């Protein structure tokens, strides 16, 4: 009974703490704007299939390159598809791919980083050399190579993005673990005879979690940038899928007389990236982590 109460209290504390962080984030205008924009995009991504007025892949020669009107709010593209429909569905693609990609990046990057920070020595040296080497291959070359050899489907893109954007998290997680591991409470946990797993789970992870989460939030926006750049270059998701990068690259050639079909995805993608960035910044500040002096690697 008493135990139950304690866990309940703990849970309540966690929720309260999360609220507290959200409140701090929203207390500054930049954080509030970021949170609102991200929330807007997430809600739109969830409901877009139900509110989309047209079929995103319905090609019709009669409605090619129409200017924005009451029927087609954002006009139509060169194949006569409704730009509004494709724009709101494009957010769904972008958010799904990058959300799962970030999750993978966080998991493998965080775990490998903590592991390296813990064991140290030779293994750590070798792993960090390899991570450094991976960092020095430009992301675009590596991603293009993987995608061109394995094909352009979301099943390939998500793990590939997750893998590539996780290597930076390895560094952050390792550095954070290094900071924690010398602290007294780890030493005393060792002295109390706790197992390695228990030390990782109960002592280290709670202390490095913030740094890793902030890094992950930042990676999210870079991954979105990378993913849409890939789509733009024709190596991302394949054509009928509504995707912002793809829409921009398709509409680019005709933008001298049909600028609307390029403006809508540009606004969508830019606002989401800026929103995530502002949110990640506010998140970092709310947790008291300063990453403004770091390079975007």
């Amino acid at each position, binding site marked *: 009974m008493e135990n139950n109460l304690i866990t309940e209290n703990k849970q309540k504390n966690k929720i309260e703490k999360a609220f507290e962080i959200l409140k701090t984030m929203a207390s500054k205008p930049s954080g509030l704007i970021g949170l609102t924009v991200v929330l807007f995009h997430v809600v739109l991504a969830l409901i877009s299939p139900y509110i989309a007025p047209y079929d995103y892949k319905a090609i019709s020669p009669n409605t090619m390159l129409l200017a924005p009107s009451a029927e087609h709010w954002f006009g139509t593209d060169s194949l006569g598809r409704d730009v509004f429909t494709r724009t709101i569905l494009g957010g769904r693609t972008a958010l799904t791919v990058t959300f799962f990609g970030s999750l993978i990046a966080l998991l493998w990057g965080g775990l490998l980083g903590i592991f390296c920070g813990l064991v140290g020595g030779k293994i750590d040296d070798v792993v960090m050399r390899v991570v450094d080497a991976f960092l*020095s291959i430009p992301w*675009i070359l590596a991603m293009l190579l*993987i995608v061109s050899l394995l094909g352009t489907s979301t099943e390939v893109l998500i793990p590939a993005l997750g893998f590539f954007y996780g290597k930076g998290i390895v560094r952050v997680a390792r550095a954070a673990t290094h900071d924690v591991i010398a602290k007294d409470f780890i030493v005393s946990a060792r002295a109390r005879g706790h197992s390695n797993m228990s030390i990782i789970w109960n002592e280290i992870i709670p202390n490095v979690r913030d740094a890793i989460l902030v890094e992950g939030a930042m990676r999210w*926006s870079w991954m979105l940038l990378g993913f849409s750049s890939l789509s733009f270059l024709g190596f991302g998701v394949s054509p009928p899928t509504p995707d912002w990068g793809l829409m921009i690259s398709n509409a680019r050639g005709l*933008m001298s007389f049909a600028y609307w079909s*390029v403006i809508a995805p540009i606004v969508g993608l830019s606002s989401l*990236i800026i929103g995530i960035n502002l949110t990640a910044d506010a998140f970092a500040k709310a947790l008291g982590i300063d990453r403004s002096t770091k390079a975007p690697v």
Partner: protein
Amino acid sequence: MLLLILKRIGLGLITLFIVSLITFVGVEVLPGDACTTYLEREAYGAALDACIKRLGLDVPAYERYLDWALNVVRGDFGYSLSGEMPINEVLGPRVKNSLVLASVSILIGIPLAIVLGIITALWRDKLPDIMISTVTIFSMTIPEFISATLLILIVAIWLGWLPGIVILPSDATFFELLSNIILPVVAISMIMTAHMARMVRSSVIQVMSSDYVQMAILKGVPYWKMVFRHVLPNALLPAINVVALTIAWLLGGVVVTEVVFNYPGLGRLVIESISNRDLPVVQALAIILASIYVGINLIADLMTLMLNPRLKSLQIRK
């Protein structure tokens, strides 16, 4: 000091070696070899045999790696599949064009970033800072292909001031390039300047709040003298490394920008060779781009060492 420099160079070489291994093993492990991916549906019979012979794919992988690596060290990247000409000849003009684009962007971007960073730091949270910081957030978060597309739409199409895309052969002369690179340079330096200005800003703010600057203020050192003598040297030093990392990171962005503007540089070659599945060229590009990255970092490390007297004496004492 010399030992330290040698150590840094050694680490850089090890990194390059690992990169070469990764690209080689990556190409090896992924399904399909250079010939079958390149020839696609025609990969059978005589054509396939000839291609395998030409690339020497019939010898074991480690031998091929050694052979290839030795040639690369000698500066010979072998032959490309599609053009069937030496990769060195393909690369030469592309490297030059990209260098022109990158160096013009850097020459404009770095001084601008330093000035903007200092202004925003000294007038922290005042109007100039708020205005510049808002613009930098926009220009550093928006993907290159969007800002480049918008630049073309607004400057080239709506206003008609400058050509929207570069229509030049890859062996165009330097002056032919210059008139065409204004928009690409703006697109690249926009995002680079924003990143660096933010770092310079936080670095200056950090130094401004340090004890010795407070002491200088209390001692009555004139404000501008204090800024130039005490704050800037200490604030810009740590920024060097970060600037180097930023430049290296932006290599990816240069690829996208070159494609948008149809600029005949290394970046477009990356896309072309991958679309053509020309793996020997891709391997060469991976090594070259990674060397640029390692090289820039090395230069930054050495510059920091040279400029920081504390690190120097630390090494001597050791």
